[in-house]
Every structure is written in C-alpha cells, then in structure tokens.
C-alpha cells in the first residue's frame, strides 16, 4: 500500500495507521503522540495532538476527508495523501491542542521529576505558543499516594488513559480508573486503595507527564544529571531487561527500556524496578543510546547518540529534495541569531 505523507511516498503493510507510516519515514514527519502508545491496545484518539489532514482518501476515492483525522487510529488506504507538518490548519489546530492541554496544567516543571523526559514538554516546545491567553484559575487536586511506590499528582495529568490500559492489559486486575467527567475527571483508586501488583510500576513509565512518579526516585535528581546504562538480570517474573539511571556510582532509578518514541519495549516487574538498586544486582550491557536532541544527552557521560534512522534510503533522499521547496511562508519568520 502506497501512502504519501508530506510529499514523501512510502510503501506500508495494509492495516498500518497513518502514525506508524509516518514513523517509518522518520521522526521529523511523525505526528506527536500524547495518548497513543503502540504496546497498549485500544490506546489513542483522545489527546487529538496527532490530527492530520487527509487531502485524498485513497486511489479509488480521492476525495479529501472533511475533518482532520487522528493519525494514530486512522488506517491508511492505498493512494492516501496526508499532510502533517506542511498544512497550516493542522499546525494551527495543534497550537490549540497544546493550549488546551496546558490550560489546567500547573507548569511546575522546575520541581517535576518528569522534566526532561516529558512528552508534554516536547509537544508544547514544538507546537505551542509562548504566551498564555488564560487568566482563569486552574483546577487543582491534592497529590495522592497510590501505595508504597507510586505518587499521583493529578494536576499534571492529561487524561491519556495510558495507565488505565496498562493496568488492564499487563496486570491481573485493575484497581484504578477515571472518575467523574469533563475537566473535573481524575485518575483515582476510588477510596485511595493502594495499587499493589507485581507490574504496577509500569504505569510510571507509560505516563507521558509527571502525574505518576516513582516514589523511590522522587526529587533525587534531574533526569539530565543521570547517566542511563542498559542492564539485565535473570528475573523470574519479567525479562529483566532494564535501564539503570546512575548518578555517580549510585543507581538512583530503574526503568524499562524505551524505544525512540518513548514507548516501553518490554514491561518490567516491581522487584526489578524498585528493589534491585545495587550495581551488583545487574549485568551491565553498556550505555543507553539517547537521541541527539534529547536533553538527557546533554550530560557528559559519553553515551553514544542516535542519528535519525531512515528505514528507506529513497525516502530520505526524496525528503531532502522536497524540504527546500516547502512553502513555509505561513509560519512566523524565524529570528536571525547573531
């Protein structure tokens, strides 16, 4: 199936979503994903950050789709033409989405553990505007302890439902969910029941913002001061493949390994995540690769960096050619740096 995204044509399997087709082309084309999470079934379609314009539905029916469509759940058709970063309407809508997501967000990045690996930060940095238009008081919630390991700060939550799907799909029995509706909806365990499950810690990894944080890591370090190392152990419950985050010689945090889209490759158990915090518990496998543009690569630990990977060489060449001819006149002129 051939699909054209931002003038780059790519051949994909039937049933691929626009999002995944765009990801195959490269990170510069991929729409932002705040709620979509590939390892979790039924996720996506909620944040509306990935809306794209379909200018031609398919080869057979080349009519454009009337509304913007969520790329994470819309499957490609043969001959579909999609506009993502080159469509003014899409970029304008995305600005609006960032504004909506930040409307009741506390913007407490300076004290938030997620800062530096927060998808909302990336999203608003790439697509948001610097000025706020709201003077309204923000909705606030009190932080809640969900058991011994997880802290919930509902103020930061964007209701992506990822943690709900995680609990549904990889743990045996979900005890938390979404209560109430509208902008007073909240993630809750109903009567502050503790989440107690061998795989519950994974909700921390899937959370795109700092709503669910690791209590054993809370306020220990900024992400960019720590050094990620791949490590493994022979764990009976999970694959034992993790990333250790060092500060000096001390393991301050253990997380699952994530791919270039920030998605967990293999979910890990709570024993690995919260209790094995000595180097002697692990077999080290070398530094974790970090994307060049990530703030984490700003540290001086010598972790090797990833250059953007192009699965299709041809697509890469095509992209370079087209890139220069793009009409970006509608974008605000960039300030010249002296």
């Amino acid at each position, binding site marked *: 199936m051939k699909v054209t995204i931002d003038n780059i044509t790519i051949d994909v399997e039937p049933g691929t979503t626009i999002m995944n087709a765009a990801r195959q082309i490269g990170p510069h084309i991929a729409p932002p994903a705040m709620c979509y999470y590939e390892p979790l079934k039924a996720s*996506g*379609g*909620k*944040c*509306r*950050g990935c*809306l794209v314009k379909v200018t031609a539905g398919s080869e057979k029916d080349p009519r454009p789709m009337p*509304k*913007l469509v*969520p790329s994470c*759940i819309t499957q490609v058709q043969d001959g579909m033409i999609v506009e993502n970063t080159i469509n003014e309407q899409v970029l304008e*809508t995305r600005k*609006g*989405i960032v*504004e*909506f*997501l930040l*409307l*009741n967000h506390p913007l407490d990045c300076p004290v938030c553990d997620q800062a530096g690996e927060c998808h909302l930060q990336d999203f608003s940095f790439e697509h948001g505007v610097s000025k706020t*238009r*709201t*003077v*309204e*008081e923000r*909705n606030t919630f009190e932080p809640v302890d969900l058991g011994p390991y997880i802290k919930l700060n509902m103020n930061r939550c*964007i*209701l992506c*439902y990822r943690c709900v799907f995680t609990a549904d799909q990889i743990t045996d029995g979900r005890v938390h*969910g*979404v209560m*109430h*509706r*509208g*902008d*007073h*909806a909240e993630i809750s365990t109903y009567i502050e029941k503790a989440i107690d499950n061998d795989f519950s810690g994974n909700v921390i990894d899937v959370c795109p913002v700092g709503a669910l944080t690791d209590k054993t890591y809370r306020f220990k370090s900024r992400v960019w001061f720590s050094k990620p190392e791949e490590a493994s152990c022979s764990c009976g419950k999970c694959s034992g493949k993790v990333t250790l985050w060092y500060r000096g010689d001390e393991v301050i945090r253990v997380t699952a390994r994530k791919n270039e889209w920030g998605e967990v490759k293999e979910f890990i158990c709570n024993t690995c995540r919260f209790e094995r915090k000595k180097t002697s518990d692990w077999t080290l496998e070398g530094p974790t690769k970090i994307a060049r543009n990530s703030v984490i690569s700003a540290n001086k630990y010598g972790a090797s960096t990833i250059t953007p990977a192009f699965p299709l060489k041809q697509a890469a060449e095509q992209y370079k050619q087209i890139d220069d001819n793009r009409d970006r006149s509608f974008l605000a002129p960039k300030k010249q740096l002296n």
Partner: protein
Amino acid sequence: MKILTEHIDVQGIETIDVFRKNGGYAAVEKALKKMTPDEVTEEVKKSGLRGRGGAGFPMGMKWSFLAKPEGVPRYLVCNADESEPGTFKDHYLMMKSPHTLIEGMIVSSYALGANTSYIYIRGELMYVATILEKAIQEAKDKGLLGKNILGSGYDLELYVQLGGGAYICGEETALLESLEGKRGNPRNKPPFPAVKGLWQCPTVVNNVESIAATSWIVNNGGDEYAKIGIGRSTGTKLISVSGHVRKPGVYELPLGITVEDFIYADEWCGGIRDGHKLKAVVAGGSSVPILPAELILKTTNGENRLMSYESLSDGGFATGTMLGSGGFVVMDETTCIVHNTLTFGRFYHHESCGQCSPCREGTGWMDKVLHRIEHGKGRQEDIDLLVDVAKKIEGNTICPLGDAAAWPVAAAIRHFRDEFEWHINHPEKATAKGAVFMREGASWSL
C-alpha cells in the same frame, strides 16, 4: 395531520386494550404476517423518514448500512436518553403512549433481523421506564413479544435499560458503552455501530420518535408518508416548545409550515406572551445556533423560513440554524443572551465526558470566560477569545458534543456581539438584576 400523537389524549391509551382498539399493533400484524424484513426496510426508505434525534440522517439509509454477517446477532437500540436542554418530546410520547414506541420497536427489529432490542432511557426518567416495562409485560402477555410472535416464527426480546443520567450517553457510541456496563465514553469512529456496535456486533441506534414513526409507515406505506411534509423533510415532527410563548408544550406538526405561523398561530404556540416581542429562538435544542427574530422568521433571501430541515439550515451557520432534535426555545426581549449562553456553556462544561482534550478543557474554559463576562469581569479580548476557542473545539473532537458546545457560543457572539460588548463596557449596569441590553432599532427593542 397527526401520526404519533393522534390518539394520545384517549383515556387509558397506555393500556394495551385501549391502544389496540385505536388501531394499535396493526403494523406488527401486517409486517410480521404479510411482509418480509426487506420490504419493511424498503417502505422506510421510500418514506424519506429522517432521524429525529438531531442529525437528520435518512433512516432507511442507516438501516441499509447495517452489516449482516452470518451467525452474528444484530441489535436495535432505541435512544431514549433525550437530554438536550429544551427537548422533551420523547419523554412525552413514552409517558403518554408507551405502546406506540413498543409497536415501532417490534416492526423495526423485524426489519433489521434483531432478536434482542434495547430501549436505553435516561436515569432521571425512572417513572417512564416503569411505564414502559409495564407496557412490555402487557405486550408479552398478548404474544406480541417473546418467542414466535403471532405465530410468525419471529422472536424478539425487548429490554429497558436505565442510564446514569449523563448527556453524553445520548451520543450513540457512548450509549453503547454505557449499555455494555462501562463508563459512557464515546468511541472513536470508524468502526461505526452499523459494523461494530453493541458487544462488537452490528447495531442500529435510532431515536424514539423515528422508531415510533415506522409503524405508521408500515400501515400506510412509505409513499403516503412522503406526501406529508416538504421536499426532503418528509412526515411530521414533534416539537417541544418552551420559553416565552402563550402555549408551551409538545406539538406534532407536518414539516413545512412557516416558523411565523408556528410561533404566532393560535393552533400552535399562540404568540409571544402578552406585551412582549420576539427576540431570539433556539430552534432545535440547546446545541444549535441561536437566531435573532428577523433571521428566524425570514431567510436572507426574504423568503419565509419553514419548519423543515432545509429551510432552517438555509444560509449555513452564518444566518441559519438547524432543526436538530426539535427543542424550540423562544425568548422575548427580557432575555439576556449572555446569561443564556452562560447557562448553555455551563451545561456543556458539566456534561463533557473528559476523554478528548479540546472538549474537556475547551468547554471549561468557555464556561469560565462567559461567567466572568456575565458577572462584570469581562475583558475586551474575551469575545474574540471565545470565538477562537469555539473554533478550535469544533470538528476536532471524538464525538459531536464538542461541536454542540461550540456552536451556541459562536452563534450568540455572531448575532448578539453588541450585548457581550455592553456587558464588558458597562459592568455595573450589566450585573444589575434583570438587566438586558436593548439594541436601538432592533425589532425587539421597546
């Protein structure tokens, strides 16, 4: 011309005996004994009946989209959640004449080949659910429901399900989620319910009024039905009238009468209450754009506006509105449009399910800004802000609730911008009790 409410004032019409004496259940006998399901569908297609829940999608076409794979059950779900502010027609029909709906349900289920059907009713209407359940029991006792109805070999079980009382559960996919026992969050479409609906089986969701109309169509033929009405707006429509008219209530009218007649004729609403003038009308439930008096009576071409799908939407959203679900709210010159918009805005803020971000945050934002303007704390830029927020919600949400929240705000500013400006510029006057801005030279200013 009355179809649904012809016998509604007959004493004891809620009992099956009186209902049958007045010609009830003739459609069931005719359909099940003399017609095939496809023939029933064909009649409904011919009738041109359009969905009465709000969107006005042709019902026959909706039925023909239903996927019919072998060995998979199909469902018919009646949407009796009716929670649009200003709309109370289904409530009235079900309360007064429950068998009208049940007869329609049997005929429609037969046409679709559904052996289990549901009536999903709003939680607040508990007593109507009781009336319906009693009627269903009566129909069962007479052999009109259950196994082998009237010896035709067709089985149908009909259930009444109460919702929790959420506006969002009137959206068809949220309704199905709620019916399955889950949180009433709308689903992403596609897949549409006609392919994967209730329990992932093909499902048709129809409004009470649409389903009730099918039995008349079976009795008298689709062509007869299509003769009533005007153009593509065929048949009769229940309109729930509220507000400053002499005779508010539920009226059944043939589509195509003029709006002016409907408001002023003694047969219908009987005019605006004494000594007052028409200011604005919300023609189809709270979610459709509000129109000022001059635009609701005449289109911009100078033609009389009619009570029909096409005529009311003439001029698009710039100068038109929608027939919607038929919640006709009439306001005279004592009504403050800003206050009215705030009331609608607050409703949508409260009823947003919170699943997708534009609706969740946008409705709350609009509510807060409107609240400030109404209470004398507005800023000049707030009006444009509201327009922009409405624009960013519209069309970008999972379900139409986002649009429904954005349209009334955008329309109120479009047609009554001076009222918003007056509120912002004269906060002391605007916050006084009963204060309303009177536009000079407008038809409603005294």
